[in-house]
Every structure is written in structure tokens, then in C-alpha cells.
């Protein structure tokens, strides 16, 4: 990804016009750029999850006096975080949709009903109507390793099963107590 963040001299023109920065005090694109330039990976908690709040509106980039490719820079920081396992759960779910259905937003009963009402095919002529097409998507996502990237991670399962065990123990104890 083409990045030219070395050109940034921290004037803050980016943050001053950022619509997300206006809504979220934690979203400061100028700070993210400087942290990236300085290689402050130990401060990652100051970046994640906030770096994922960017709407990619390009307002910062349009306003940058140094022609820094800010959006490319944000996307590159995100990609690095994702490959270190810092993907947000909500984004992982969107990724799983792509793996399972070939669409980030797959069809549902309401959409199918509306389609028929409009005289369109119940399923659009995309991978949603093509087993072969969907199998091609799955092959490609396996080749790029994307299916692994968005797979449920094991530690999360452990946490969940630990929580379930706790819940089970609690319930059993409650039953015993109530029984007594």
C-alpha cells in the first residue's frame, strides 16, 4: 500500500475536518499517523479499536497541505493490526458472511419477498444463485488465507467455554441449594 506519511508535519488539518473526530474524541487521525511514524507499537491500545472508526470519506486527505495519502495510511495500519489478530468482532462477522455466502450483506426472507413483488428473481443472479460461483469464492478465500483470518479464534472459545462452565456450576449449585 502506497504510504507517504513521512511527509506529515503534524499540523492537524486532517483531524480538524474529520467527521468521525468530531463525534468521537478518541478518533484522532493526526495522532495515529505520528504513532505509526514513530513505530509506537507498544501503545497499540491507543489505536485499536479506534483506527477502525474511519469512514474513509477522504476529507482529511483533501485538506492535507502535504498531500499525505491519509486513507491509504489508515488502511495499512488496520491491515497490520488485523494480521496481528486485532480484528474487531463485528468486522470478523462481516468477514464470515463473505466466506459463507460470498456477500458481506447476504439476502434474507424480507429481501426475497420484495424481489418477487418487484418482478425480480427471488435470488439475485450472483453467487447466491450459483453453487459453482460460491465454491470459487471459497477456493479463492482459502488460497489467500482469508478464511483463517476471520475464523473464530481459539482463545475466545476458551473464554466462552469457561464462562459456560461457570454458568453450569452456578446453576448446579443453585439447584442443590434450592433443593436443600
Amino acid at each position, binding site marked *: 500500500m502506497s504510504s507517504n506519511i513521512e511527509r506529515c508535519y503534524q499540523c492537524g488539518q486532517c483531524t480538524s475536518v474529520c*467527521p*468521525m473526530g*468530531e*463525534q*468521537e474524541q478518541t*478518533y484522532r487521525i493526526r495522532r495515529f499517523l505520528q504513532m505509526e511514524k514513530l513505530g509506537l507499537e507498544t501503545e497499540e491500545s491507543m489505536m485499536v479499536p479506534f483506527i*477502525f*472508526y*474511519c*469512514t*474513509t*470519506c*477522504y*476529507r482529511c486527505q483533501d485538506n492535507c497541505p502535504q498531500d499525505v495519502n491519509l486513507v491509504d495510511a*489508515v*488502511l*495499512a495500519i*488496520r*491491515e497490520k493490526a*488485523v*494480521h496481528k489478530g486485532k480484528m*474487531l468482532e*463485528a*468486522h470478523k*462477522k*462481516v*468477514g464470515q458472511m*463473505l466466506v459463507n455466502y*460470498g*456477500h*458481506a*450483506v*447476504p*439476502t*434474507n426472507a424480507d*429481501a426475497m419477498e*420484495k*424481489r418477487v413483488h*418487484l*418482478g*425480480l428473481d427471488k435470488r*439475485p*443472479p*450472483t*453467487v*447466491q444463485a*450459483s453453487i*459453482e*460461483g460460491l465454491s*470459487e*469464492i471459497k*477456493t*479463492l*478465500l482459502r*488460497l*489467500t*488465507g*482469508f478464511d483463517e*483470518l*476471520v475464523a473464530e479464534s481459539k482463545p475466545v472459545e476458551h473464554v466462552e467455554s469457561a464462562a459456560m462452565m461457570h454458568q453450569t456450576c452456578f446453576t448446579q449449585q443453585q439447584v442443590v441449594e434450592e433443593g436443600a
Partner: protein
Amino acid sequence: MSNLSLFLGCVAPNRYPGIEAATKKTFSKLGIELDDLEGASCCPAPGVFRSFDKVTWLTLASRNIALSEEMDDDVLTICNGCYSTLKEADHELKSDADLKKDVNEKLFETGHEFRGQHDVRHVIEYLYQEIGVEGIRELVTAPLNMRVAVHYGCHLVQPLKEADSRLVSGDITFFDELVEATGATSVDYEDKMMCCGAGGGARAAAHDATLRITEKKLENMADAQVDCIINACPFCHLQFDSGQKDINEGSCTSYGIPVLHYTQLLGLAMGLSPEELGIDLNVTSTSEFIEKINDGSLMA
């Protein structure tokens, strides 16, 4: 000029199929046949998947373009996000032989090849450049008389800066001109070029904050007393339409501005009914708007 295949993306066919129907019906009236792009997938979304894994983003994008190339077609998108992904991936692959080779090695496993001999078009710039404002005006049989808030959307403008900068240098008016060709008036409003709030995966990551961005835009549109919002992107469409319901529930407001994709507005001006164009299928009620279309008060 090449034939076109219609790239549907995700949100239009799976949430707002009225946009798909309106595109097919208006293009049929224009005398342009749109081929179905059978087996196409998510584009995949530019701010989301490109930032998760760029190789994945390029690979699936190149497959979608390859499917269209196999029919000797250019790709027509009806969504800004799809346009951004397919236009930029197409550009990167055409200008980097090594990257193209890498991606094609993967595509060969599925029997496809990205050749890079076709183009990616967005419906708005296509209509503006290939049919022209006068050409559209000539096809209008039911001229409109309404005040409209045009929302360009970030990913319509940004790819054009690389691809066709004369459309986006200085004052940007190409979309407004197309809207006005229907008889409607494109009303100026504060922060018109501002984002809808949804893009880049922000809708999933920070839903409430994106709605606050949307609310600011809605406030400015409402101040301009518009009859509807016209967009060029099903994802902006979703954010404005379903967003109004979420905002009203959360902030005790009562926004009720009808949201239409340009192809739906054009369909009305070509004499198609609101129901044929799926304008009645929005989350935010359009019944009052439809009544005014039917009783003629929004028609010239």
C-alpha cells in the same frame, strides 16, 4: 462503446431491490441492454476488506471484473463502494504486471483470468458522459417538480479524481445536472459533500457515532426543506433510510425524508410508477411522497 454487465453488489439486491429494478427499467427505456453478471460476489467492500487483507480484496475484485470481461462487457456499478473497489483494483492491476500475475495465479485455480481490457463505470458518470444531460432531458416524459437534496457520496467522487478529474475539479455539478434534467431542483445545503457516515466499516465498528454524522447531514437537508434525498449508492441509501428510524428512536426526533437512488428518480421522470421502482419499500415511510406524485403536486 462496449456492452455493459450490471454489477449488483450486496446492498441493492439484498436490501433495496427497488434500486436494481429501477436500473433495469430505466436502462431498458434508454435502449441499453444490461447483461446479468452471473456468479458475481461482493465487490469486496473498499474500506472494510481492503483494510483486512489487500490480496483478498484484489483477488475477489479481479474475479468480478474477469466475469464481465468473459462476456466482452464493461462493468456498470450502481454503488459507490463497488465503484471504488472495482475501479481502483482495475487500475492497480492494469498498472502493475507483477500484481496482475500474482492475482491471476489464484484466479486460474477457478478457471478465470483478469485481462485488463475493459473498463469499470458508475451509473452516474456513465449517464452523464455517454447519454448526456440533454439526452436524459429528451427521455423525460413526466417532468418532476420537487426540491431535492443531492448526496454524491465519498466513493463516487474519490475514484473520479484518478479516473476522470475534469468531472471533479472545481465546483462539482455533474450529479446535480443529471437530477435537474428530470425537472427537479437540486437545492444547496450546508456541508453537502459530507459523508453519510456509514463507510469504511465504521457502521459496524461505531454504529452510534456514524448515526450522529448522518443526523448532522439530515439536519442540514431538513433545513433546506427538501422533498427527498437523492443518492448514487445503496449503502448511503441504507444509512439515510434505516438511519432515520434509528435516529428518531434514539434522539426523539421525527425525521421522515424519503430516500431515493438516482435511477428511481429517473424512473419517475420516465413515467414509471413509484411501486414499479420500489419507492414504497423503504424503511422510512414514503407514502406521503407517493401521494404527492400521484396527485401531481410533485410533478411539473
